[in-house]
C-alpha cells in the first residue's frame, strides 16, 4: 500500500493542489483558506523532495495517467532535469505560503482572500503540471491553467493599474499559448503523436519539411513570450509591478523559469539540439536576443523609480543569462542555465519578498518613499542587500555560482564578446541594486513618510525572506550538491537519454 502510494507521487504533486483548490473555495474564510494552502504546498514540497531523491538514485520515473500506456495515453516523466525544476517550484510555493498570509491580508479585501489562495493553488498545479508532463499537448493545457490563474492573480493587485497590466499580459500570454498550440499541432500533423519521447523518435524522418520547421518556430516563439525573452518581455514589468507582493514573489521565481524549462525540453528532448542548433540557426538567434536582453533590460532597470519595476526589468535581463546558457548547446552551458534557473528563482523570490515586506509597512514601492528604511526596518533592508549582492554575483552568494558556471561555459565555447557582455550586465546590476541600497541606507527618512508607524514587517514575512536569503548564501558557500544535480541533468538531456 505504501509502495503504491509512493508510486502515485508524480500525479499527486499536480492533483493535491488541484483538489485543494475547490476545498479552499468551500472553506471560504480567509484563515481556513490559508491553512489549507499552507498544508497543501508543504505536502507538495515533501513529495517533490521524495521524487527528487528517487530520481537521483533510481533514474527517471514514468507514470501512465489513467493506466493508458504511452504513447496513447498521457505520460508523466520525471528525469534528473525536471526534478530540479519541480523542487524549485514546490519549494518556492512552500516558502511563499508562510509569507503570503500577512502580505495578502494587507493588500486584498478579506472577503476575496480565499479566491487568491485558490488561484495560487491553480497556478501551482499548472506550473508543476508543465514540469512533470511528458506529453506535448498536456503541457499546453497546464500552461493555460497556470496562465489563466496568473492573469486573475495579477488583476487582484491593490492598484487599478493592475487590471490594465493583467489585460496586457493576457493578450501576450494568449498569443504565446496559441503559438505553442499551433506548433504542437503542426508536429502532431507530421507524426500523429503527442508524446514527447515518441515525437523525438518520429520527428527526424520529417525534419526537412517546412511543417516541421514551422512547428519548431511556433513553439520557440510561443514559449519565449511566456518566458519574457527579449523582445517579448513587454508584459512582464507591468505584471510584476502591479500584482500583489506575495503573488509577484511566487510568479517571478517560478513562472518564467518553468516556461524556459519547457523551451529547453522542446528544443533538446523533442526536436533535438542538432536539429535546432545545427540544421537551423536557432542558437544564433537566441544568443543575439539574449545578449540584447542582458544589456538593454539592465539599462532600463537603472532608470526605474519603483523597486518592483526595477527588479522586474532585472528579471528580463536575467532571462538573457539563462537563455544564453542553453543556446551554447554544450553540457556546461545547459548546466549553467539550470543552475541559474534555480538560483535566479531564489534571488528574485527573496528580493521581491523583501520589497513586499517594505511595502507592507510603507504601502508603497517607490524608491524615494523607501528612503531611510535601513534604520526603521534593519532586518528586511539587510535581506535586500544580501539578495542584491547575490543578484550582482558577489562571491559567497548563489548568484556568483551561476555567473561562474555561465562564464566558464561561454569561454569554453569561445564566445568572448558574449562573455564581455555578461560582465558588463553584471556591472549594470551593481548600479541598479546600488541605487536601491543607497536610498535605504544613505538617505534620511522623509518627514512625511516617517509619520507611518515605524517598525519591522511581521515575523512570518521576515522568516520566509530570510529562509530564501539563507539558501542563497548556503548555495554560494557550498555549491557542489547543486552543481552535481544540474551537471547530471544536463548530461542526461544532451546525451540523448531522457
Amino acid at each position, binding site marked *: 500500500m505504501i509502495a503504491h502510494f509512493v508510486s*502515485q507521487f508524480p500525479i499527486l504533486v499536480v*492533483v493535491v493542489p*488541484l*483538489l485543494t483548490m475547490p*476545498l479552499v473555495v468551500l472553506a471560504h474564510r480567509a484563515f481556513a483558506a490559508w491553512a489549507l494552502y499552507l498544508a497543501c504546498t508543504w505536502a507538495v514540497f515533501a513529495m517533490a523532495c521524495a521524487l527528487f531523491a528517487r530520481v537521483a538514485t533510481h533514474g527517471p520515473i514514468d507514470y501512465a495517467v489513467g*493506466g493508458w500506456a504511452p504513447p496513447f495515453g498521457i505520460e508523466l516523466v520525471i528525469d534528473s532535469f525536471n526534478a530540479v525544476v519541480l523542487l524549485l517550484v514546490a519549494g518556492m510555493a512552500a516558502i511563499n505560503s508562510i509569507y503570503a498570509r500577512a502580505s495578502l491580508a494587507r493588500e486584498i479585501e478579506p472577503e476575496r482572500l480565499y479566491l487568491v489562495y485558490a488561484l495560487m493553488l491553480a497556478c501551482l498545479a499548472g506550473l508543476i503540471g508543465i514540469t512533470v508532463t511528458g506529453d506535448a499537448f498536456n503541457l499546453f493545457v497546464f500552461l493555460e491553467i497556470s496562465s489563466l490563474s496568473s492573469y486573475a492573480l495579477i488583476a487582484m493587485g491593490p492598484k487599478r493599474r493592475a487590471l490594465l497590466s493583467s489585460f496586457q499580459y493576457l493578450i501576450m500570454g494568449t498569443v504565446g499559448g496559441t503559438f505553442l498550440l499551433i506548433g504542437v499541432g503542426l508536429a502532431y500533423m507530421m507524426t500523429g503523436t503527442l508524446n514527447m519521447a515518441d515525437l523525438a523518435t518520429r520527428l527526424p524522418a520529417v525534419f526537412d519539411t517546412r511543417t516541421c520547421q514551422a512547428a519548431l518556430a511556433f513553439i520557440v516563439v510561443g514559449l519565449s513570450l511566456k518566458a519574457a525573452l527579449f523582445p517579448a518581455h513587454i508584459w512582464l514589468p507591468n505584471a510584476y509591478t502591479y500584482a500583489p507582493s506575495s503573488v509577484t514573489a511566487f510568479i517571478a521565481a517560478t513562472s518564467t523559469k518553468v516556461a524556459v524549462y519547457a523551451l529547453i525540453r522542446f528544443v533538446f528532448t523533442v526536436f533535438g539540439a542538432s536539429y535546432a542548433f545545427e540544421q537551423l540557426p536557432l542558437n544564433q538567434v537566441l544568443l543575439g536576443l539574449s545578449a540584447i536582453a542582458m544589456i538593454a533590460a539592465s539599462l532600463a532597470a537603472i532608470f526605474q523609480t519603483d523597486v518592483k519595476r526595477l527588479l522586474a526589468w532585472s528579471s528580463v535581463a536575467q532571462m538573457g543569462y539563462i537563455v544564453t546558457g542553453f543556446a551554447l548547446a554544450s553540457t556546461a552551458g545547459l548546466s549553467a542555465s539550470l543552475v541559474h534557473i534555480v538560483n535566479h528563482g531564489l534571488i528574485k523570490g527573496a528580493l521581491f519578498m523583501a520589497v513586499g515586506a517594505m511595502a507592507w509597512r510603507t504601502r508603497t514601492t517607490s524608491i524615494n518613499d523607501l528612503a531611510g528604511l535601513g534604520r526603521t526596518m534593519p532586518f528586511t533592508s539587510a535581506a535586500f542587500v544580501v539578495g542584491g549582492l547575490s543578484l550582482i554575483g558577489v562571491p559567497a552568494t548563489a548568484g556568483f555560482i551561476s555567473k561562474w558556471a555561465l562564464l566558464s561555459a561561454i569561454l569554453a565555447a569561445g564566445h568572448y564578446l558574449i562573455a564581455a557582455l555578461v560582465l558588463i550586465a553584471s556591472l549594470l546590476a551593481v548600479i541598479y541594486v546600488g541605487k536601491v541600497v543607497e536610498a535605504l541606507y544613505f538617505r534620511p527618512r522623509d518627514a512625511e513618510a516617517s509619520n507611518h508607524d515605524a517598525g519591522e514587517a511581521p515575523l512570518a514575512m521576515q522568516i520566509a525572506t530570510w529562509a530564501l536569503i539563507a539558501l542563497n548564501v548556503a548555495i554560494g558557500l557550498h555549491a557542489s550538491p547543486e552543481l552535481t544535480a544540474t551537471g547530471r541533468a544536463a548530461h542526461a538531456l544532451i546525451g540523448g537519454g531522457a
Partner: protein
Amino acid sequence: MREHTVLRVVAQLIIPPILIFALYVQFHGDYSPGGGFQAGVIGASAIILYGLIFGVEAARRAIPPTALRITASLGVLIYGGTGVATMLAGGNFLDYDVLAHDPIHGQHYGLLIVEFGVGVTVASIMIAIFYVFAGRGRVEDRDT
C-alpha cells in the same frame, strides 16, 4: 419584461425541456455526442433564459450565488475524487478499470461520474458569469 406575455409563456414552456435535454446530453454522453461540458452549458442556458425573462433577482432567488460557489467546487471534487478513488482502489489516477468488477463497467461508471462533475462545474460557472455580467453596476453585489 412584464408586458411580454408571449415571451413569458414560451419561456415557461421551454425551460423544462431544456433542462431535460441537458440531462439527456449529460448521461447519454458516453454513447452519443455530448458530455459534461455541453450538458452544463445547456443546463445553464435554461437558467440564463429564466433570468433574462423574469429578471436576475428571480434567478438569484432560484439559484443563489453562494450555492453556485459550492456546486462549482463540488464538481471539481467529484472529478478529482474519482481519480483519488481509483488510486485508493490500487490503480493509477483516473484508471477507471478498477472501479467495477470488470474493466468495461469500470470505464463506463468512471466516465459517467467524471462527466457529471464536469457538468455540475460548467453549469455553475456559466450561471455565475451571467450573474456577474448582469449584476454590473449594482451596489449590493456581494457573493459571486
